[in-house]
């Protein structure tokens, strides 16, 4: 029973047989309705600045240049090779970024989860600092580090890793490095939270029953940390799908993702119909991933960050 329920429950029990029970009940309902009214300013703002504009774009995407209903913008999306390439790039970058984040983020979260409290708080700053730093600043930092005469090239040549400056920015590699850097905290934080919620007695019990450390990790700890890992990977993937700033700056025009294509369509061609259709497809992809994930996994359990046990 939630706190709010317990708030109303005693009232209902006490007044069950009272002559004015019906009146009290409707009063209570009215009061709850008024309290719900507290949401209305926020609801009005979100409706005007987000819901209505998105519905409007939806409408525009089905409008032909002559102003009649048509599917021409969607036809163009499916017919054109250029768009197929953009969608392919978007998926490629999103999937690769998510995979790299999982591979390097999971060990970091595991390491942080096992540290003593104070040390963990200290090391956590390395995850939180980038999280709080402007994404533009971080993208700029990578642009500077990865450029032809940048620090990475200079140091790598001095160390003898490669002989002459190589191109690591204004292409897919640069984009991936920047994206992984931006997305990593979104993976580490939920994974860390879910690891912290795991009862260490399970692992102790496994060790007690003769499991080697590696067995105890893979058979007991890892499965229990999966809900957090899925949640983190899902957040990263969905954010990547609609990402704009980092690929626009670090991709140097060679890595065109859906979001960039949308802004170009507006800024260069003023083609609202085409941009809206792209936007609708992006929205469907995003919400589709979230929906599929919520069907496949029990999303409430993930978001609740619970014990994840059976």
């Amino acid at each position, binding site marked *: 029973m939630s706190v*709010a329920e*317990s708030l109303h429950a005693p009232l209902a029990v006490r007044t069950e047989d009272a002559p004015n029970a019906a009146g009290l009940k409707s009063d209570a309902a009215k009061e*709850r309705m008024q309290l*719900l*009214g*507290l*949401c209305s*300013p*926020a*609801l009005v*703002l*979100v409706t005007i*600045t*987000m*819901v*209505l504009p*998105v519905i*409007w*774009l939806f409408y525009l995407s089905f409008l032909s240049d002559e102003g009649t209903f048509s599917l021409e913008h969607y036809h163009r999306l499916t017919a054109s090779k250029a768009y197929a390439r953009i969608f392919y790039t978007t998926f490629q970058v999103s999937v690769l970024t998510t995979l790299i984040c999982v591979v390097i983020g999971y*060990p*970091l979260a595991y*390491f*942080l989860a*096992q540290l003593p409290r104070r040390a963990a708080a200290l090391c956590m700053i390395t*995850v939180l*600092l*980038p999280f*709080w*730093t*402007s*994404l*533009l*600043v*971080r993208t*700029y*930092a990578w*642009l*500077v*580090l990865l450029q032809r005469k940048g620090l990475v090239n200079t140091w790598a040549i001095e160390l003898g890793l490669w002989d002459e400056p190589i191109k690591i920015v204004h292409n897919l590699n640069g984009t991936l490095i920047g994206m992984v*850097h931006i997305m990593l905290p979104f993976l580490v934080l939920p994974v860390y939270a879910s690891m912290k919620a795991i009862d260490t007695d399970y*692992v102790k019990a*496994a*060790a007690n029953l003769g499991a*080697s*450390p590696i067995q*105890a990790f893979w058979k007991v700890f890892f499965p229990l940390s999966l809900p957090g890992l899925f949640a983190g990977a899902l957040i990263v993937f969905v954010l990547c799908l*609609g990402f*704009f*700033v980092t690929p*626009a*700056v670090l991709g140097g025009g060679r890595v065109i993702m859906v*979001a960039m294509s*949308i*802004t170009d369509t*507006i800024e260069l061609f003023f083609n*609202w119909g085409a941009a809206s259709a792209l*936007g609708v497809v*992006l929205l469907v992809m995003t*919400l589709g991933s*979230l929906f599929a994930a919520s069907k496949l996994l029990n999303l409430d359990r993930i978001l609740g960050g619970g014990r994840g046990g059976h």
Partner: protein
Amino acid sequence: MSWFSKAASETQITHGSRLWLYVVAALVMIFLVAPTIIVIPMSFSESQYLEFPPRTWSTRWYDHYFNSYEWMSATRTSVVAAFLTMVVATPLGVMAAYGLFVSSFRFSHMIFLLLISPMMVPVVLIAIGVFYVYAKMKLVHSMTGLVLAHSMLAIPLVLIVVSSALKSYDMNQEMVARSLGASRLRAFMVVTLPQIRFSVITAALLSFLTSFDEVIVALFISGGDNATLTRGMFITLRDQIDPTIASISTIMVLVSSSLLVLAQVFGQNKDGK
């Protein structure tokens, strides 16, 4: 017994046998912080090409920033917009969180989802949608329009932070205050708010930062005298590597890390306990 052969966890694995984990974690942590940190000394370089370590130190790029009318105007716009966003989004978000928490209807969950949807819908889509509607309402390039759009983006954060604080708060305390004659508003202000204040402050800092760091919506709807700092930075970045950006970045890193320290300090005092 050396540290290497000491037990490192419940499973009696030794520090030595998972040295690789420490190495990987250290490398990833360096990867996370190094880029942002390295920009700071670079911003004090005399050269047109950013060097590390700088051969000659100078504050040339800071002078350039502080003496530029455009950059100063953009900074002013960003700070004002972020402050106003904080002032608008925090009360709206707290009201909504409280309203949803105490009323707990069956459809409250739907309202919650609707209010946090700005976090799920791709920002580009929101940006062009807002641009289209603002063009009709003559709100493009206006401070009002910018603050309203940024507040909408900040509301989900406020709602999530404050809702989770309310969940661990014992609402019976407010009932006691009300049974002793306090109105609901007074009971909230005097009893509940002081106990969730740290979360409210964190939420306010987050909404400030949401607006201050926001790029895409600002790219479309801000401009003229009301162009934001991030808009100017993004447009400059697309064309060239201007060292002035390094000095601005340094200042922004200082702003966000001091906000982070503030949030951590408040975070230590857990609410509702």
